[in-house]
């Protein structure tokens, strides 16, 4: 390699006539009514953030009503029940419908541009995740209008939320609605992981990746491992409420504390799920604002990864007052100390970056400084509540309310508003107003501290959380009035930002690099992102090569047009970002939106116990999904294309290198996390109530265990053979493949049905005790893998019949195969746990 090689651009200019027009045509956004079919990240991403902000405003209005109620003692503005609904909805909407979706949306919007990709790898999945969230979230919020909202607090502890104490449908709304939105979050996370690891610009090694991309990668990894715990928890509680399976009822071997374990195993990582991307935004904004590179990039990346892991060792610190042994609490207190290290190191790295350059006080910089102030204080009070003895005093008081708002508003809302001001010119035709921005910042900063700082004291003075009012003798009147005034000042600041956004934000040819930033999202871009995909050699490519923007726009880098005539992007290797193939991407379609509406309707109708209608909606969703997949992977016109500079890449990839293989593998990690949460629940309830577990002599329900296991193994071998047949592809014996697939699918399904029949015929009923309920849950979880394997299996056979599945283009089958083998493995584990475990422990 010589220096001239390094400087040579892959393509010559001027580019052939019509190349840019073809690129623009294939990436154009549908107009009019069909705009709803758009799947491009710069459209969906903006819708996504706008929706998240709408939910932010909604939940903020609820908070304003609560603050009005609490402003004076003995107030009767809202009734206790309405207050409980307001409080529950405020927390739930802020956490599940604003904070997590907002950062996920920021990832969808920013990542492709920042990484030099044309779009995220599964645009229709992004569209589905967005529509599912928007439709489901809107219906969830509307429950408040009918007084049907959940009222058990945002963390929904049973027994308060069990059917005996919350008999209305509010709790079901929460369980089904939130469970469903978590599924949408996982879909988005898969998209983001594959996008970050596989669609970076050539040369953007993992050590040159923008910090925001790192944070989104870790964010998505945490979603994959943490969110299944809440999905399992909502599933169990809903099974208990709807069918009486006793997971949380102590009379029948359940334990309400199991909910707290599962909820916080999700809930604590979730705080960092929200905070990490916000920290990533700060690490992008500060270098621009100071016009100097980030100091200690390497240490920051280490800190981010460490946070991702350590945050999984904190969940019991929400349970310090539940009577667990002191030593257990000690472990979690120690891990809580550990997680504050990486957050602290980032604060000092940002300070170092500020000192490294000359800070320009634009609005984004102000919001970042506000974030530094508020978040540091929130972190310090976090260390305080992580000290077990302190928590004994502060638990469930307003001190905790103050702490969590310092962390969440300071750690997420301020960086998000900085990001809104910072990145608007990268997507909108106009930038936001600096003067209004500064006014908004000061209102928000002063209002926030006025509202929440005093709450530390209100809490130490003994005011408990979640009370709808308090007596004037308690002396909490004045501090509460101060909080209320602060909250309204904060709201005024938010209103100014929203006003300016509505006035100025217009999707179109973006305003451009107004901050002289150094990263790729500031390249001139359209729907197709940058015109050509640059080679990356530095952390801040726009600073190190001032001609980069011009060369990219002239099409002098890779893939200056459309090589196959379809939408496409370059797929690179995960660490070194070496180009591997050109991926053909889907066109806009109605299918993702219809599938999302069907899925949302399915869950909502289930809430109202309208099972027939729900199944109908579910069927529509499945059909729409099949339709969505049907025209993916068109037969490429060329096996290989030249993307510039003589670099020829294949246009199709199957096997472990392909993006679809990666996506399914990540989905299976989430399924594994779900299963591990289940195993945890099983073992936990066993330690709580070993008495309801049968003795070895009683394990009569195990009669079919061996047969089930044998069927699963046969099915597994059959599928492996099918995979092999597809590879060698005998044209003369085409019937072998479908026969093998159908046979294996049948063996798997029969094994599962037999398993359930075995329990039932032995007289085991899921309602008798927690052991029986857990036994049936094992089959249910396996069914959640078998069902999609069946649907996609049949779909692959249809593609095979159409001639769209062969030894090369075999992704649909590979997907089935991975799901299928996972279902087999889970089935075998189930036999071990459900039949084997009682033998071992007795």
């Amino acid at each position, binding site marked *: 390699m010589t220096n001239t090689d390094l400087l040579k651009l892959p393509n010559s200019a001027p580019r052939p006539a019509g190349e840019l027009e073809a690129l623009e045509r294939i990436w154009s956004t549908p107009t009019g009514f069909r705009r709803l079919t758009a799947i491009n990240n710069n459209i969906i991403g903006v819708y996504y953030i706008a929706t998240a902000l709408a939910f932010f405003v909604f939940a903020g209005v609820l908070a304003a009503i609560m603050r009005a109620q609490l402003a004076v003692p003995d107030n009767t503005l809202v009734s206790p029940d309405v207050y409980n609904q307001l409080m529950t909805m405020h927390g739930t909407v802020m956490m599940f419908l604003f904070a997590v979706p907002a950062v996920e949306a920021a990832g969808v919007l920013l990542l492709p541009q920042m990484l030099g990709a044309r779009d995220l790898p599964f645009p229709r999945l992004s569209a589905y995740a967005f529509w599912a969230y928007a439709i489901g979230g809107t219906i969830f919020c509307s429950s408040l209008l009918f007084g049907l909202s959940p009222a058990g607090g945002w963390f929904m502890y049973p027994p308060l939320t069990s059917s005996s104490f919350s008999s209305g449908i509010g709790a079901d709304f929460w369980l089904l609605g939130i469970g469903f939105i978590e599924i949408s979050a996982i879909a988005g996370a898969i998209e983001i992981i594959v996008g970050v690891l596989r669609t970076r610009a050539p040369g953007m090694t993992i050590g040159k990746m923008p910090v925001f991309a790192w944070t989104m990668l870790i964010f998505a990894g945490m979603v994959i491992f943490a969110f299944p715990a809440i999905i399992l928890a909502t599933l169990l509680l809903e099974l208990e409420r709807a069918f009486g399976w006793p997971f949380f009822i102590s009379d029948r071997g359940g334990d309400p504390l199991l909910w707290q374990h599962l909820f916080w195993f999700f809930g604590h990582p979730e705080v960092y799920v929200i905070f990490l991307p916000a920290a990533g935004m700060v690490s992008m904004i500060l270098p621009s604002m100071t016009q100097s590179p980030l100091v200690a990039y390497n*240490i920051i990346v280490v800190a981010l990864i460490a946070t991702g892991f350590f945050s999984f060792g904190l969940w019991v610190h929400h349970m310090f007052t539940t009577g667990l042994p002191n030593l257990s609490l000690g472990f979690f207190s120690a891990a809580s100390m550990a997680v504050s290290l990486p957050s602290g190191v980032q604060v000092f790295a940002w300070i*170092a970056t500020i*000192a490294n350059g000359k*800070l320009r006080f634009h609005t984004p910089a102000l919001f970042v400084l506000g974030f530094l102030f508020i978040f540091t204080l929130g972190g310090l009070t976090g260390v305080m509540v992580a000290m077990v003895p302190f928590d004994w005093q*502060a638990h469930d008081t307003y001190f905790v309310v103050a702490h969590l708002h310092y962390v969440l508003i300071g750690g997420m809302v301020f960086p998000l508003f900085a990001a809104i001001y910072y990145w608007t010119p990268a997507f909108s035709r106009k930038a936001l107003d600096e003067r209004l921005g500064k006014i908004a910042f000061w209102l928000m900063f002063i209002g926030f501290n006025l509202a929440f700082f005093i709450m530390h004291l209100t809490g130490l003075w*003994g005011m*408990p959380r979640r009370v709808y009012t308090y007596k004037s003798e308690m002396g909490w009147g004045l501090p509460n009035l101060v909080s209320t005034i602060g909250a309204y000042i904060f709201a005024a600041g938010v209103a100014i930002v929203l006003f300016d956004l509505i006035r100025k934000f217009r999707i179109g040819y973006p305003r451009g690099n107004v901050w002289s930033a150094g990263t790729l999202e500031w390249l001139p871009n359209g729907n197709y992102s940058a015109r050509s995909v640059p080679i990356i050699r530095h952390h801040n490519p726009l600073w190190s090569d001032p001609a980069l923007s011009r060369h990219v726009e002239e099409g002098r880098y890779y893939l200056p047009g459309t090589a196959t005539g379809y939408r496409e992007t370059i797929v690179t290797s995960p660490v070194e970002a070496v180009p591997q193939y050109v991926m053909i991407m889907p066109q806009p379609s109605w299918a993702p939106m219809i599938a999302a509406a069907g899925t949302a309707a399915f869950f909502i109708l289930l809430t109202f116990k309208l099972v027939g209608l729900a199944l109908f909606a579910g069927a529509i969703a499945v059909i729409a999904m099949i339709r969505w997949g049907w025209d993916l992977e068109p037969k490429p016109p060329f096996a290989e294309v030249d993307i510039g500079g003589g670099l020829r890449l294949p246009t199709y990839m199957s096997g472990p290198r392909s993006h679809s293989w990666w996506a399914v593998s990540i989905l299976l990690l989430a399924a594994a996390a779900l299963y591990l949460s289940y195993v945890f629940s099983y073992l936990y309830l066993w330690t709580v109530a070993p008495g309801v577990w049968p003795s070895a002599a009683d394990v009569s329900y195990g009669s079919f265990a061996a047969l089930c296991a044998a069927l699963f193994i046969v099915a597994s071998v059959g599928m492996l053979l099918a995979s092999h047949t597809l590879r060698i592809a005998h044209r003369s014996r085409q019937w072998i493949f479908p026969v093998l697939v159908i046979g294996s699918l049948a063996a798997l399904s029969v094994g599962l049905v037999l398993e359930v029949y075995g329990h039932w015929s032995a007289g085991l009923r899921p309602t008798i005790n927690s052991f029986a309920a857990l036994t049936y849950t094992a089959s249910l979880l396996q069914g959640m893998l078998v069902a999609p394997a069946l649907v996609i299996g049949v779909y692959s056979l249809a593609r095979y019949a159409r001639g769209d599945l062969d030894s090369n283009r075999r992704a649909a089958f590979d997907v089935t195969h991975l799901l299928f083998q996972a279902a087999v493995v889970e089935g075998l584990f189930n036999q071990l746990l459900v039949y084997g475990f009682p033998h071992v422990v007795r």
Partner: protein
Amino acid sequence: MALGLRLDWRVAALLGFAVFGNATEAWCNQSALHPASDAAERIFNLIVVMTAGAVAIQLLVIGLVIAGVYGNWRWRHRIASVRFVFAMGVIFPTVILTALLVYGLLLMRDGHSGALPGHDAAPMDTT
């Protein structure tokens, strides 16, 4: 408490009273700043120590930000280095947190006896 930081609850209550003149005897009953047992007294000392530490660190951070923006060349050069980040972000908190963790664990070992008779929390209507 040996550290000389001992702030009597009465002082805290007076401070609160000075700011929020509507305080009455009643709210002291369930205030964490009004320890009514030996265990609560020990935790109150922890609260005082941690509050003082938190204030000091918060001021340090604000001071460093100001030095980073407006400081002279020498200060800013010193702050803008990986060595500074490592010293302030890794070594300093490790030392502080180790000490704090041990303090907290020792308090836990000494246990928490119940509140003294006659100091029950005021009843709250939480429906």
